[in-house]
């Protein structure tokens, strides 16, 4: 497949209820404010009831399909570590960076099957990724701000400040204002918290 430098493809993977669609909206709007074409694809309904969710956001020029082709993700932002593996389809050794929230969400459908743990997940992903980062985002925001759902904005802010997504922090902050349904102040706190405390 021909490499296309004009596109930047982001997969947001996680579990229904983690606010992935809002996060996708923030990225899309920030990208738009920065003069990009944007495409986003999301799913609703059944998949929002605690199942696996993958929101796809595509920025840049020459973006046509709402779906990222296999192996063409630039960034996979996994809000739950087991879900990182499920987006592996989009990854490639050549360019994909994984940013994983080291956090686990239990599902009754697991029954008593054992989950692999971060170490094993990372070693499975590594051969298919350019780089893998992880951070205990949910724990950090829970401890510092008392609200786990802020992990999404925290991770996004961290990614933007680290230069992992080609959009400006100022535009992300603007997009947060326009898109978070409630608790703007806390979301802004999460944004600034990541600016100085994002050690993966």
């Amino acid at each position, binding site marked *: 497949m021909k490499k296309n430098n004009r596109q930047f493809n982001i997969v947001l993977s996680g579990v229904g209820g983690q606010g992935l669609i809002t996060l996708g909206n923030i990225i899309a709007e920030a990208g738009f404010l920065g003069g990009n074409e944007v*495409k986003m694809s999301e799913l*609703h*309904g059944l998949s929002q009831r605690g199942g696996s969710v993958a929101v796809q956001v595509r920025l840049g020029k020459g973006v046509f399909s709402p779906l990222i082709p296999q192996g063409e993700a630039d960034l996979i932002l996994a809000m739950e570590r087991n879900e990182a593996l499920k987006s592996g389809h989009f990854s490639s050794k050549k360019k994909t960076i994984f940013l994983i929230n080291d956090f686990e969400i239990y599902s009754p459908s697991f029954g008593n099957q054992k989950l692999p743990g971060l170490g094993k*997940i990372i070693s499975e992903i590594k051969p298919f990724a350019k780089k893998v980062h992880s951070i205990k985002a949910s724990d950090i925001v829970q401890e510092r701000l008392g609200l786990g759902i802020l992990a999404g904005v925290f991770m996004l802010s961290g990614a933007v400040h680290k230069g992992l997504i080609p959009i400006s922090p100022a535009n992300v902050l603007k997009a947060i204002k326009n898109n978070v349904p409630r608790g703007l102040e806390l979301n802004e706190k999460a944004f600034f918290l990541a600016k100085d405390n994002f050690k993966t």
Partner: protein
Amino acid sequence: MNIEKLLYKPAGEKAILLGDFAVIRGALEAGVQFVSTYPGTPASEIGDGFSLLKKAGKGSFYFEYSTNEKVALEAGIGASFSNLKTLVAMKSFGLNVASDALLPFGYTGIRGPTVIVVADDPSCHSSGQEEENTRGFASLAHIPILEPSDPQECKDFTKIAFELSEKFEIPVILRLTTRVAHQSSIVKLGKIEKANRKAGFKKDYQRFVTMPPRVLEMHDELLDKLAKIKRESEQSAINFINDWSAVAKIGIITSGVSYLHTKEALQSLNLRIPVLKLGFFHPLPEKKIERFIKLLNKVLMVEELEPYLEKEIKILAKDANPKLKIFGKNLLPETRELTPEIVMSAIAQLAGRKLKIENSLKIGNCKLKIPQRSPNLCPGCPYWPVFNGVKQALQEAGLKREDVVFGGGIGCYMLASFIPHNLQDYLLCMGSSIGIAHGIKKANKKQKLISFVGDSSFFHAGIPALINIVHNQSNPLIILMDNQITAMTGQQPYPGIAESGRKEKGQKVKLEEIVKACGVKHLKIIEPAKDYKGFIKVVKDFLKKETVAVIIARRPCVRIKR
């Protein structure tokens, strides 16, 4: 962004819109006056968006969540007969329910321009039941179908659909799929028209009464109309050839989101191949297609699900270009949605290119065992004690799970299917848990049966089935899951509450009054979370009844924002 601000942005500006919201904007630009819907993913956001606008006091249109899609369409037909510009929205399965009204509506035609938005869900991301392709209704109903690819086209095609409807006095279907309805991208906005058609039903027997023998003339007239619309389709700019300058002897015909996958694939493969992009699925611009395929040696139809286009084009090629090699479902799957890499691989084969897809970690090749994460009931969902209580009741009654058949229905309560509940032995369509229960009970009266039905499903399609049970006398136990909302699709109101989806309240219709009026003798209203023991007891009691028994398990959904 606040939705009224977003959807009422001034003309000339750009906004990032979800496909469903772009349909709303298109309808506003067209001056829509009457909107009805029943929720269903991926069409729910259309109704929800209109509802939010109404609640914010915006818009000069009427909006309602109707009891089901047939009723929504009938309300729309009434509005159209009364000269209003009308939009009705539903998911694919909704059109099956509405089809009894849809077909004669094609015969009568419209008075106020009418657009019916129908959203399919290839790959069943948010659908049980079946993987439906609304294109099938084209040959059944003889109604034009337009297929947008992206939010810009969602907006523009909605307007075009209204114009077509007005010009040819026929309802027009706008067919979306999940990846169009739930795709967001930048839309350039047009001017919002003021709704200006005067409302009032003017009698016109020849037009609105489908009595025989007139109905047969109407059938002829419908086909005549369609022939005229075909001429329009030949001229229409939404059926266009992309990159005609490409001199390749191969071409592609496609529509909807498949067009976007095709463009992505051509870009990645660095190929220039002419693409005929169809905005009209029905009627097809046959002459345009013939002119296109005449110049080719090979053509590929990139379409999701059934090969409707492929079949049509095979027929056209017989005269236009008998030597043409036609590719479609021999290179593409006939079930599930298409993706860019699937299309890429088909085009590569067509063009004789070698394809190297980036090395990626496929879930199937993963050495680590990651357990499947099924959707589940929310923490605190009122259905937990219902399912647990039923199991407990069986145990106390000395019954095994195998001894009882569990009827499932469409809604959050279909999660009864998964671990840890495992209480679902059949699942078909809305309201059917009750209708099918009757047949099972009639087949073998000794078989114990408990069927679950949601409150919105009950109003939607359960009531006639319950009446049938009472009248024809069978004795299932029905548990009515009264969570006071249409939950699965995003907490839309329904007739059981006073909320209407508008600012003003509606009239609440009480479930228990309907159940009683149907002639049910054994009825218990209970809140299992509060009276768990009482619930278990009534399940045990009611399983022994000689006539049908209904338990209304009442407690609001935890997601309701009031």
